[in-house]
């Protein structure tokens, strides 16, 4: 588990730790970078939306190598963000309307096998799951 202050200067640390956890779980270089990006995006979403830019909160990251998949949960105790309010990505419209939101969630969903959001007692949990390639299931972090 990793607990970091809700400040964007800690995103580099989140990325590094995630990459190492993914490597230890048996993913190869290109995929570890992508998983690190997905977790960076989830953490950024918490900092910017759930915490509204407040720098004095905490983001918790839970890593679990489940043998056949790597599971990462990004946990906050901020505001619940309604995912239905996040626009679906249409790049042509983004270019013409100068919109830049929603790209992060789109990236997360394209990279990971599943991205789910749930509300626990006073907590929001974003769970990201990446299945391992055949042959890497036996390796555990």
């Amino acid at each position, binding site marked *: 588990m990793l607990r970091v202050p809700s400040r964007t200067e800690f*995103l*580099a640390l989140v*990325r590094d730790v995630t990459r190492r956890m993914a490597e230890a779980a048996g993913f190869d270089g290109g995929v570890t970078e*992508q998983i690190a*990006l997905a977790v960076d995006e989830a953490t*950024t979403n918490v900092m910017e939306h759930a915490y509204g830019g407040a720098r004095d909160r905490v983001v918790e990251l839970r890593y679990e190598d489940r043998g056949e998949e790597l599971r990462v949960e990004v946990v906050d105790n901020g505001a619940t963000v309604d995912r239905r309010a996040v626009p679906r990505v249409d790049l042509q419209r983004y*270019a013409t309307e100068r919109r*830049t939101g929603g790209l992060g969630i789109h*990236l997360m969903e*394209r990279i990971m096998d599943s991205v789910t959001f749930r509300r626990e007692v006073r907590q929001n949990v974003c769970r990201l799951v990446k299945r391992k390639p055949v042959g890497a299931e036996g390796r555990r972090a």
Partner: protein
Amino acid sequence: MSELQVDSRELEEVVLLYPRGFINAHTVRLFEGEIQKALDRQRFKIVVSCAELRYIASAGLGALMGVIEEVRTNGGDIRLADLNETVRNIFEILGFNHLYRIFPSEVEAILSFREGGETGGKRA
């Protein structure tokens, strides 16, 4: 250690930007600022040379999206060169390779502006 440094230079009408390091939510303002400086000088032909860009998150991609219409409306374009595999993969995951012309080298990106093709969303 600074996570991002962005050097720039001009070659005739073309502005070259050299991001070094990581572009994410923490560093994106610096990257946006360098693009904006070019626009403020009415320079709309921009090459982002990515040889030393190790990583780009959606914040950086959003920075490119936020100005591309203005750039193309003014007869220019933002073209990318020298992407490493990590950065190229991110572009492809989002389909940015269909919106931006990407070149193997900085020289080819610069020369593409001399070939008459000003605005373009297709991959080279």
